[in-house]
């Protein structure tokens, strides 16, 4: 019987059909998905902080409205993804607890600080650009609810990337000081953006099984290369450079060659040693704890009304 179920699962995945919540699935598949989707959801939620930092100081009402909408989208993306984990039997409160206790991770990119308003633009262009590269293939991931969440997210990420690029174009048409600010920001975010695709394929422990289960559709290095190829003409049009002396077009490969990110720094940030790791978690914990009275009051209100209706 178990073999039958496994065979049906394998066939569904191989046929590029989707696995749905009530289908039988291997424990490892379920665990891998919960881990990956929760980590993704946590990233969206923590990702509200670096940009939220600039909402009150946006230089115009237009930029403020855009930034508010973008940060609200990040919250929405987190919720779509938490909702997908719950179809796998995960518990929302448990996931939040694991995040604020540091037992589940989020993308390391959000442990870097946003020092200037140009960072808002560069995050939209490069960080959301890298996220899109990662996420577009996930619209075809084998687990239905995850794929559907990714389709919604990708549609909205396109706004994020374009608003960032437009913001930078505006700054590049400004003063020399503004142009320098953009270049400085690009210099700080380029390598962390490349690290968003994860460690090199040779060191990525989860890739092989995830590819077989069609959770993951491309390897880390393939996606990183694609991102570099896409970003170069955008940088040229903008008038900025990337801080990599090895970055150049390779006629033979038909792709750009580029240097290797500092993987020691990557692992250091993953393990908690980034500039903002503590601040991000402390802030999330505080928001959760400060909001507890609201959650309790809402439950009390709902119970009171349910009783009234019951009595009537």
């Amino acid at each position, binding site marked *: 019987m178990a073999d039958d179920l496994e065979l049906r699962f394998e066939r569904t995945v191989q046929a590029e059909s989707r696995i*749905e919540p*009530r*289908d*039988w699935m291997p424990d490892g598949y379920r665990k891998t998905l919960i881990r990956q989707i929760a980590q993704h959801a946590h990233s969206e939620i923590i990702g509200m902080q670096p940009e939220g930092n600039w909402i009150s100081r946006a230089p115009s009402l237009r930029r403020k409205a855009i930034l508010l*909408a973008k940060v*609200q*989208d990040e919250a*929405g993306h987190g*919720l*779509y993804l938490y*909702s*997908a984990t*719950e*179809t796998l039997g995960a518990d*929302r*409160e448990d996931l939040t607890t694991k995040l604020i206790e540091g037992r589940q991770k989020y993308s390391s990119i959000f442990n870097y600080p946003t020092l200037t308003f140009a960072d808002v633009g560069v995050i939209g262009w490069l960080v959301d650009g890298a996220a899109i590269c990662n996420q577009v293939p996930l619209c075809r991931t084998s687990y239905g*609810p995850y794929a*559907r*969440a990714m389709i919604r997210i990708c549609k*909205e990420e396109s706004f994020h990337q374009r608003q960032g690029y437009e913001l930078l174009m505006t700054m590049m048409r400004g003063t020399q000081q503004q142009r320098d600010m953009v270049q400085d920001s690009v210099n700080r975010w380029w390598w962390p953006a490349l690290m968003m695709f994860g460690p090199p394929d040779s060191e990525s422990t989860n890739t092989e099984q995830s590819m077989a289960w069609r959770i993951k559709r491309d390897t880390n290095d393939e996606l990183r290369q694609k991102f570099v190829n896409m970003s170069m003409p955008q940088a040229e049009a903008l008038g900025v450079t990337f801080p990599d002396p090895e970055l150049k077009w390779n006629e033979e490969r038909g792709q750009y060659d580029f240097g290797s990110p500092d993987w020691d720094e990557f692992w250091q940030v993953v393990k908690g040693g980034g500039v903002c790791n503590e601040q991000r978690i402390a802030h999330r914990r505080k928001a959760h704890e400060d909001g*507890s009275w609201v*959650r*309790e009051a*809402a*439950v*009390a*209100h*709902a119970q009171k*009304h*349910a009783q009234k209706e019951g009595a009537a």
Partner: protein
Amino acid sequence: MSTSWPLWEVFVRGKRGLNHVHVGSLHAPDAEMALRNARDVYTRRNEGVSIWVVPATAITASSPDEKDPFFAPSGDKVYRHPTFYAIPEDVPHL
């Protein structure tokens, strides 16, 4: 007192003339808040003109394990499809 909010399934009618379609779920303390949260989470870009929220516990679903027997009754009734009937090609409007 437990502060966990129950789970609601959300269905959105994209525009007049279409059915409500399941779009996801969310947590809320009561139906009214579920509707408001659903608006903010699932219709930030005019994706809907009407929303239903249903307590997740109120949904009864068929089991995928019974897939074949459960749907078998319709499986062998090809005569329910219009293509089952051979009609001469020169007969119009059929």
